[in-house]
């Protein structure tokens, strides 16, 4: 190790002396920054090794701004980045597409008749990269390990909804090989049996979208304990997806090579990298060609860079459905008076924030549903900015004007930090003093969980196709939620959503949003327009909110 470093060090010292040479070699191009690997200097500065390896392979870099937590699908948490990164190697059963429809990935179909039993058929052609077919056993083995006590994967405790899983934690004892709720019908068919009615959307969105089956024939001998700490996942030899991970560093990058045996066809791009950057580096990365693709659920591009990225001549940008809201969660225990909360809603000039901070690239909505949601019928008019009415309302409230509300916001979201100060000023107009405290995201979430603030705001993306679990957690968990909000009517409506038709769902969710507008446990400050970008040389890549990796095998580089 040390010796290697020393030699490297020496090499570097020598190299610094040679630097001018290398720099000259690379400077021949006046075109947009040369692709670091594609446009290797052809002068003597390039070493043999480099040119041989770089010449044949095509490489695409995907930029993300969140760190990747884990590469073991069994340890998957709700982080979208991790799910997509793992999904490239281990296909999920289903995935959303850009139109917010569920499309089969490893599965070929998902059906239910009674909202209790769900039948999942696997793609007949689906095979592991070693040629072995993907079977029901892989799916069942994966789920039973995912929910094993040792794995203790708290992110999927909702599995309690299925028969045979613990009513509280959703777990099964280690070594469980079969449970009531998972039925192996045949080689390619699995049935899930729920304890209570469950909508098909929720089933797909909450559960099987996150089921990334693993090859039982390779890993089957491992105990959950071994699986948990195995480094096999860092360089899996057998995968089901289009790409196989070769190297990872969760805080910095993941490298993949194409899976030659991918059952939907070998990807046209030989190598793919996911690179973790800070939001402010996305622009320079796109410009220099170090990043080819960004997309909004994986990379939060700063609002103020949108225009500059749009102006780049090597990049196509994509504005897509607004799905991410910046929501103020009000602790209803600390601010119990509905009138006061309504006054607050009225006192904030949200349109001004959209125009001023988002440069118009966003919208306002009351409640949870954005214009991207399939259940939004557009009938709910957001409460208008009306400071006078707000003052009148406040007059009826017994509020100690000297009290200062503690408003915690995410320091990483500079746009909203600025907005929060505007909001504080506007609330002060109606006699509510607010102290804005910017905190890093992790601390902010921890404080919110512990109810250590009066108000807090974060960016929150509700899955448009199935907002149920998020809404349930945010406003129906009572004191276990950030808002401490509890309303039997909301709980009832949420219950109904689980066996409703599409039309009924619209009704129920709109009803919930009306209650939100009335009772104001949350203020949806603004909904951000989503933003993605891809290099022009990259074809067939659509920087949509959902489903962008679904056909990653068709991505192609044009010369």
């Amino acid at each position, binding site marked *: 190790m040390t010796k290697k470093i020393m030699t490297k060090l020496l090499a570097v010292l020598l190299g610094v002396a040679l630097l001018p040479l290398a720099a000259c070699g690379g400077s021949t191009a006046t075109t947009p920054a040369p692709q670091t690997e594609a446009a290797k200097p052809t002068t003597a500065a390039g070493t043999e090794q480099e040119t041989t390896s770089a010449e044949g*392979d095509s490489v695409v870099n995907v930029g993300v701004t969140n760190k990747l937590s884990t590469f073991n699908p069994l340890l998957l948490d709700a982080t979208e980045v991790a799910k997509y990164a793992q999904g490239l190697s281990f296909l999920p059963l289903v995935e959303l597409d850009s139109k917010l429809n569920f499309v089969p990935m490893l599965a070929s179909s998902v059906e239910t008749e009674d909202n209790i039993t769900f039948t999942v058929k696997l793609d007949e052609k689906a095979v592991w990269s070693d040629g072995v077919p993907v079977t029901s056993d892989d799916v069942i083995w994966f789920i039973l390990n995912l929910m094993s006590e040792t794995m203790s994967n708290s992110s999927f405790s909702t599995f309690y909804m299925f028969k045979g899983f613990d009513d509280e*934690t959703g777990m099964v004892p280690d070594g469980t090989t079969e449970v009531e709720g998972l039925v192996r019908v045949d080689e390619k068919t699995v049935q899930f049996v729920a304890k209570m009615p469950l909508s098909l959307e929720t089933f797909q969105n909450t559960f099987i979208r996150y089921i990334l089956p693993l090859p039982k024939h390779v890993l089957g001998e491992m105990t959950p304990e071994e699986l948990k700490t195995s480094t096999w996942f860092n360089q899996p030899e057998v995968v089901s997806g289009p790409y196989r991970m070769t190297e990872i560093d969760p805080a910095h990058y993941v490298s993949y090579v194409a899976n030659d045996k991918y059952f939907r066809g070998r990807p046209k791009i030989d190598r793919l990298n996911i690179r973790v950057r800070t939001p402010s580096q996305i622009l320079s990365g796109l410009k220099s060609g170090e990043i080819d693709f960004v997309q909004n659920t994986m990379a939060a591009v700063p609002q103020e860079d949108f225009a500059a990225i749009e102006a780049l001549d090597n990049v196509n940008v994509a504005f897509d459905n607004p799905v991410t809201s910046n929501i103020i969660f009000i602790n209803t225990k600390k601010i119990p008076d509905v009138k006061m909360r309504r006054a607050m809603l009225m006192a904030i000039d949200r349109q001004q924030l959209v125009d001023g901070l988002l440069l118009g690239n966003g919208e306002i909505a009351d409640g949870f549903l954005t214009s991207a949601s399939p259940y939004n019928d557009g009938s709910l008019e957001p409460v208008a900015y009306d400071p006078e009415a707000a003052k009148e309302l406040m007059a009826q409230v017994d509020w100690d004007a000297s009290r200062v509300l503690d408003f915690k916001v995410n320091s990483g979201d500079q746009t909203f930090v600025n907005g929060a100060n505007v909001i504080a000023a506007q609330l002060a107009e109606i006699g509510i003093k607010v102290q804005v405290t910017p905190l890093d995201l992790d601390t902010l979430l921890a404080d919110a969980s512990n109810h250590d603030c009066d108000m807090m705001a974060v960016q929150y993306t509700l899955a448009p196709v199935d907002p149920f679990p998020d809404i349930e957690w945010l406003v129906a968990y009572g004191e276990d939620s950030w808002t401490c909000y509890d309303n039997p009517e909301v709980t009832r409506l949420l219950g109904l959503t689980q066996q409703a038709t599409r039309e009924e769902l619209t009704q129920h969710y709109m009803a919930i949003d009306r209650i939100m507008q009335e009772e104001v446990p949350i203020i949806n400050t603004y909904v951000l327009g989503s933003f993605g970008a891809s290099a022009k040389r990259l074809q067939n890549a659509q920087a949509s909110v959902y489903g962008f990796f679904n056909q990653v095998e068709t991505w192609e580089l044009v010369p």
Partner: protein
Amino acid sequence: MTKYILKRLLIAIPVLIGITIVDYLIMSLAGSPLDMMRGPRVSQAALDARAIQLGLDQPWFMQYFVWLRQLMRGNLGYSIRGHEAVLAMIGRSIGPTLLLMGTSLAITLLIAIPVGIYSAVHQYSVGDYAAVTLSFVGSSIPGFFLALVLIYVFTIRLGWLPSSDMVTRGTEGGTLDLIRHMVMPVTVLVFSSVGSNIRYIRSAVLEILQQDYMRTARAKGIGRFLVIYKHGLRNALLPIVTVIGMQIPTLFGGAVIVEQVFAWPGLGLMTMSAILQRDYPVIMGIALLSAVVVLAANLLTDVLYAVVNPAITYE
């Protein structure tokens, strides 16, 4: 000397335990990692189960004891967030950090030592003023700003150098590729530290030049060269060893900002995110590493001191 080193190593054990106890206490006062796990799909029961599984239901000193026992078996534990072995995480990140920081330190010293000595020997000369002025400029430009300027010029405008990572992922890389990636972060680090080093070495050498024994050396008529390069430099080794010793811990700590700006896959970023995410085992692993490095660097400095200064003997 061997005995002295052995003794110091033995003393280091209780010191290390003390440091880690304090670290653990402070860390657990800062909050529980469970706070970070709440979410729409997480039930309280599942969290409780997770707490028991992680041992977080125990009082902090019991948790510490468990950690220590694991450590005795050579096991630093697994990241709560990433579930990866802490040792593997550190092992992966320490190489890049050492490479980056080591190169920067080496280049810094290669510049600072001769310039510092020149500056001291030619005090109040034009060269001295130039060196001192430049050293102030160097240390007063913020590193991140310089980094952004470099990226703008060399990556965006000229397209000569990559702005991120350590190698070009997806290629075989190679030494030249590595160097191309290192140029800008190393430049930033060298720029920010070379100034203070120059000034330190300059003042150290200036002090040595005023020593009586330097006058004695001149009185011997052995010539200016021998006076400065034999007596001056040899004595200047002492402060130089101190400078190097002081900077060894930073070799391992990494430079968070530089690593972040250049997406360098090192320890600095890992440390920061572990702290933000309250990833206990990772934090403790890094805390232990830095404590060991600091103690080892101190010992190394003391030993080197004795090597270069015959007046110091350790008994």
